[in-house]
C-alpha cells in the first residue's frame, strides 16, 4: 500500500499545474471562454505540446502509455482551474473508446488526437435514457458494406466542435438491452449529421445531434453488438473516475478560496473566520473534501479493474461520495461568501456550477447510490 507517485507522474503533475498556473487564472479563463468555439485552441495546442493529449494511448499508437493515475493527476489539475477545453470528450471518452478500436481506426485517427488537430466526442446519451447506460434507441442497419444510422443524440459534450464522433446505436434487441449495441466512428461532417451546439451551465459546450440515414462504411465499426456495451461501460467508468478527480481539484480550489475569504472579509470589526459557527462549517467542508479525495483515489485504483461488476460498484461508490461532497462544499462556499458568492464576478460561483454539473453527469448521486445498494460484495 502506497500513495507515492513515480518520478514521471510527479513531473507530469508539475508540468500540468505549471502550465495552468501560468495561463489559466480566473481572468484568463474568461478570455479563453470567449474564443471560438467557447474554449481556447491555443491552450489545446499547449496541452498537445506537453503530451497531455497523448496520456492514455499506447506507445505503439504514439501515446505515452499512461493509465488512470496519470489521467487523475491531469483531471485534478484541470478541475482546480476549471479548464473549458474538451479533454473529457476527446481524450477520455472518445479517446478511451478509440484506443480499444481495431488497428486501422487507431492508425487513422489517433495521430491527430495526440497532435491536437482532431477532436472527438461520444454521441451516446439520448433524451429518454436519463442515466440508463444501455438505453439506446438510435438504430443502425447493415446495407451492403455500409451501416446506416438513424436517431437523435443529446448532450454530446463539445459535440459542436468535434471532428469525429463515436456513436452508439442499436443493431438488434430491445431499447434497453445491453446486447445489440454497436459503436461506430462517424465523421462529424458526414451527410445526414445535423449538429445544434449550445452552452452548458458550467460555461462549456454541448450539442444535440441528429443522424438521418447516415451511411458509415463497415471499416468504421469499433465494437460489434456482443462487445459494444462492455466497452461503453468500461470507458464510462474511466470517465467517472477522471470526473471524480476533476471534482476533487475543483472542491479543493473552492475550499481554499472560501478559507481565504473567511480570513480577509471583516464584519463587526473582525474577520468573519473568527466566528465559530463559520469555522465549524469550514471544517466540515474540509472533512468532505478529504473523504472525496480518498474516494477519487479509490475510483482511480478500480478504474482498470477487469471485473465489471466489482469495478462498477466501486465507481458508483466514489461517485456518490463525490456527489455528496460537491453538493455540501459548493453550497457552503456560496453561503460563506455572502452576496459576492452570488455574482458572476467571483470565481466561487463558477466552481459551484461546475461541481453541480459533475454531480448530474454519468448518473447522479441517487442513481449511483441505488447501484451500490442493489449489488452485493465488499467495496
Amino acid at each position, binding site marked *: *500500500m*502506497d*500513495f*507515492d*507517485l513515480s518520478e514521471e*507522474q510527479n513531473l507530469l503533475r508539475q508540468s500540468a499545474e505549471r502550465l495552468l498556473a501560468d495561463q489559466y487564472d480566473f481572468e484568463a479563463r474568461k478570455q479563453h471562454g470567449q474564443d471560438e468555439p467557447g474554449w481556447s485552441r491555443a491552450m489545446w495546442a499547449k496541452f498537445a505540446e506537453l503530451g497531455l493529449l497523448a496520456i492514455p494511448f499506447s506507445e505503439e499508437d504514439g501515446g505515452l502509455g499512461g493509465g488512470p*493515475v496519470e489521467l487523475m493527476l491531469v483531471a485534478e489539475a484541470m478541475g482546480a482551474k476549471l479548464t473549458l477545453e474538451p479533454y473529457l470528450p476527446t481524450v477520455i471518452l472518445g479517446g478511451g473508446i478509440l484506443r480499444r478500436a481495431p488497428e486501422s481506426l487507431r492508425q487513422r485517427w489517433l495521430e491527430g488526437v495526440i497532435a491536437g488537430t482532431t477532436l472527438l466526442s461520444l454521441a451516446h446519451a439520448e433524451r429518454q435514457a436519463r442515466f440508463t447506460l444501455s438505453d439506446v434507441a438510435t438504430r443502425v442497419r447493415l446495407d451492403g458494406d455500409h451501416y446506416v444510422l438513424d436517431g437523435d443524440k443529446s448532450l454530446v459534450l463539445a459535440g459542436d466542435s468535434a471532428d469525429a464522433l463515436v456513436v452508439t446505436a442499436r443493431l438488434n434487441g430491445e431499447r434497453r438491452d445491453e446486447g445489440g449495441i454497436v459503436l461506430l466512428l462517424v465523421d462529424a461532417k458526414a451527410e445526414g449529421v445535423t449538429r445544434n451546439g449550445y452552452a452548458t451551465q458550467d460555461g462549456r459546450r454541448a450539442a444535440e445531434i441528429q443522424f438521418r440515414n447516415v451511411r458509415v462504411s463497415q471499416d468504421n465499426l469499433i465494437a460489434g453488438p456482443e462487445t459494444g456495451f462492455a466497452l461503453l461501460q468500461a470507458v464510462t467508468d474511466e470517465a467517472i473516475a477522471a470526473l471524480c478527480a476533476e471534482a476533487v481539484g475543483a472542491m479543493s480550489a473552492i475550499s481554499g478560496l472560501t*478559507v481565504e475569504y*473567511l*480570513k480577509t472579509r471583516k464584519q463587526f470589526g473582525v474577520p468573519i*473566520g*473568527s466566528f*465559530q459557527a*463559520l*469555522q*465549524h462549517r*469550514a*471544517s*466540515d467542508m*474540509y*472533512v468532505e473534501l*478529504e*473523504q*472525496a479525495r*480518498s*474516494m477519487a*483515489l*479509490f475510483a*482511480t*485504483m478500480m478504474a482498470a479493474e477487469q471485473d465489471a461488476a466489482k469495478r462498477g460498484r466501486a465507481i458508483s*461508490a466514489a461517485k*456518490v*461520495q463525490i456527489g455528496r461532497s460537491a453538493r455540501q462544499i459548493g453550497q457552503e462556499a456560496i453561503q460563506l461568501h455572502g452576496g459576492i458568492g452570488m455574482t458572476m464576478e467571483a470565481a466561487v460561483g463558477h466552481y459551484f456550477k461546475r461541481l453541480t454539473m459533475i454531480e448530474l453527469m454519468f448518473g447522479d448521486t441517487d442513481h449511483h*447510490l*441505488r447501484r*451500490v*445498494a*442493489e449489488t*452485493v460484495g465488499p*467495496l
Partner: protein
Amino acid sequence: MDLRFTDEEVAFRQEVRDFIATNLPAETRERLQSGHHPTRDDIVNWQRILNEKGWAVPHWPEEWGGTGWGPVKQYIFREELQSAPAPEPLAFGVYMVGPVIAEYGSEEQKKRFLPRIANLDDWWCQGFSEPGAGSDLASVRTTAVRDGDHYIVNGQKTWTTLGQYADWIFCLVRTDKEAKKQSGISFLLIDMKSPGITLRPIVTIDGGREVNEVFFDDVRVPADQLVGEENRGWDYAKFLLSNERVGIARIGVSKERLRRIRELSASEHASDGTPLISDPRFAEKIAEVEIDLKALEITQMRVLAAERAEGKGKPNPLSSILKLKGSQIQQRTTELLMEIAGPYALAYEPEREEGSNEPPIGPEWAGLSASTYFNARKVSIYGGSNEIQRNIIAKAILGL
C-alpha cells in the same frame, strides 16, 4: 501508487487472523458478537494470551515489548482484533499511560510498571476529567501539594472508565496554583488502594456501569510516582492524546457491525414479510454507511502512509477526520442495527447480561441493540468531542 496491501501485509493479516481464530476463547467471541461488552476476565485473559505471543504492546519501544511493526502492520493488527471481534486491549494502560512512562518515566518506573501493564497485572484508569474540566481539560483543580517525599492529593475526578476494576489511576493534578493554566499541571500515578480514595459509580443511559466518580481526600502519594518533571504534566498529556491515533477511527468495529447489519437485514423481515434488505430505502441506508466507511478507510491509509514517510510522532491533521467521521459512522451503524431490531429493541433486560436462564423477549442481539445505540453516543463526546475536532481542523489546518 498502489492502494492494495503488499503481499507481506496480506500474509501478516492472515497470520493475525489465524492466531485470533485459534486462541480467542469462544465464549469471549460469542459475547462480543451478540453485542455485549467484554467482561473484566475476557479482557485480562486475552491480554495475557497476546502477551505470551509477544503481541501485547506492539507500538511500545522494543526494549519494553514492542514488536517494531510499522504503522501499517499496527493498523492491520488492530483492525483484525476489532473485526474478529476480540476484546481490544485496555487502552488506559497499553495506549495511554504505558507510552507516557516509556517516554518520560524514570528507569525505576519503567521497570516497575511497564511489564505489569503489558500483562495486565495492573488495571489502569484515566483520571483526567473533572466536573469543571471537560473539553477545557487544562482547568483541572485537583491539587497535589508536596509534603516531604509525598504529595497530598485532594479533589475529584469524574467519568473514570472502568475505575471499579482499577489498581492504578494516572491523574492530571495541579501542583502550581499561581502558574498559567497549562503550566501548573503534573502527571501523577496513584495506587487506587490508597487511603482517602472513594469511588462512586455513574450509571450511563444504557443502564451500563462503566464510568465512575473518584474522590481524593488527603491521599498520600509517594513522590517517586510523579512522571517526568513537576509542572510539565500538560506536555505529557498532549503526548498521550496524540498517541491515541492508530485505530481511533475504529474501522474494524464498524466493518464488523456492517457485516452483521447486512446479514441480519437479509434474515429479518419487514412488515410485509419480505427481507428488510429488499426495501430499497433500507438498502440505501446501508450503502451510504458502506461508502462512508470505505472513504474513511482510505483516509486512514493515507494517514498511515504519511506517518510511515515522515516518521513517528508527527501528528497528522487528517487524524481529526478519523475521529470525527469514525465516531459518526460507529453511531450510524448502531442506529441501523436498532432499526433492524425494530420492536424487539424495546425490551430492557439488564439482568440478562448476568446470564439469566429466562429466555430473552426477542433475539439476544435485538434486545441489546438499543442499549448499544444509547451507549455509542459517547464516542463523539470523549477523546476530544467532535466540536473540539472541528476547532482543531479550523485552527491547525485551515488557519482560522
